[in-house]
C-alpha cells in the first residue's frame, strides 16, 4: 500500500515536472541568454524579463505541483527510490516533449545519452 502511494506520487511528479520543464525551457529561450542580458542591462532587467514571460508562471505552477508531490513521495518511499524513479520518467518524457514542442534536434549523441541516463536511473530504482 505504501509502495503504491510512492509509485502514484512518482507518476504525478513525472508528468508535472515534464510539463514544467518544457514550459520553462520555452520561456527561457524567449528571454535569451540571461548572462548577457545581466551584463548589459543589470539583474533587474533579467528578473523583469523572466517574470514578464507568461509561460514562465505556468511552468512554475507545474513545478510547484511536482514539488509538493515530491514532498508526499519522500515521506512514503526512500530518497534513493523516489528521486531516481521520478527523474527517469521525467527524463524520457522530456526527451520526447523537447523534440515535439521545443523543436530541439535530438541527434544520435543525445539519444544515446538520454537512453544511457534513463536506463541508469531505472537500474538505480530497482
Amino acid at each position, binding site marked *: 500500500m505504501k509502495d503504491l502511494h510512492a509509485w502514484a506520487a512518482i507518476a504525478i511528479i513525472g508528468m508535472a515536472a515534464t510539463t514544467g520543464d518544457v514550459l520553462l525551457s520555452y520561456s527561457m529561450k524567449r528571454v535569451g541568454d540571461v548572462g548577457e542580458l545581466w551584463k548589459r542591462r543589470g539583474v533587474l532587467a533579467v528578473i523583469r524579463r523572466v517574470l514578464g514571460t507568461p509561460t514562465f508562471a505556468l511552468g512554475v505552477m507545474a513545478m510547484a505541483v511536482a514539488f509538493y508531490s515530491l514532498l508526499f513521495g519522500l515521506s512514503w518511499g526512500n530518497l534513493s527510490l523516489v528521486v531516481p524513479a521520478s527523474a527517469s520518467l521525467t527524463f524520457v518524457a522530456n526527451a520526447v516533449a523537447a523534440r515535439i514542442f521545443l523543436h530541439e534536434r535530438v*541527434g544520435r549523441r543525445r539519444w544515446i545519452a538520454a537512453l544511457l541516463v534513463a*536506463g541508469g536511473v531505472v537500474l538505480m530504482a530497482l
Partner: protein
Amino acid sequence: MHQLTFRKYLVLAGITVFSTAGDSLLARGMKELGNVSLHNFSGLLLAVLNPWVTAGILLLLTFFACYMSALSWADLTYVLPATSLAYVLVALVGHFRLHEAISLTRWLGIALIVAGMGFVTAGPSVTPSHQHEKSPDALPDTASQEIRS
C-alpha cells in the same frame, strides 16, 4: 566544436550540487516529520516550518536560478543529461548520510548515468531551431552549430 565558457560549466555544476543538497535536506526533514497523508494536509503545509525543510527549499531555489540560467543558453535535452550526476550524488548521499543501501544494480545504474553524461557533454549545447524566435536582446554567441550526429 563550440565550448562552453567556464562560467557556464559552473552554472551546470551548481544545478547538480544544489539540487542534490536541497533534496537531501528535504528528505531529512520529511523523515523527521513522519508520514504525511491526505487526511493530514495541514501537516504538509506546516512542513515548511521544519528547519531542514526550510534549508532544503532555499537550496532548491538556488538550484532553480542556476537551472533557468542554463535553459536560457542551452537545450533542455542537453541540460538534463549534463546535470544527471545529481541522481548519482543523491544515491551517494542517501547511502552515506541517510544509511540507505546501494545494491550492485544501483552501482551499475550509476555507471550508465556517468557514461550518458559524458556522451552529451561532448556534443553541442544548443541546436539551431528553425522556428526559434530570437528576442532583440538575445545574442547568438552560444549558438553552436550541430556538427553531424
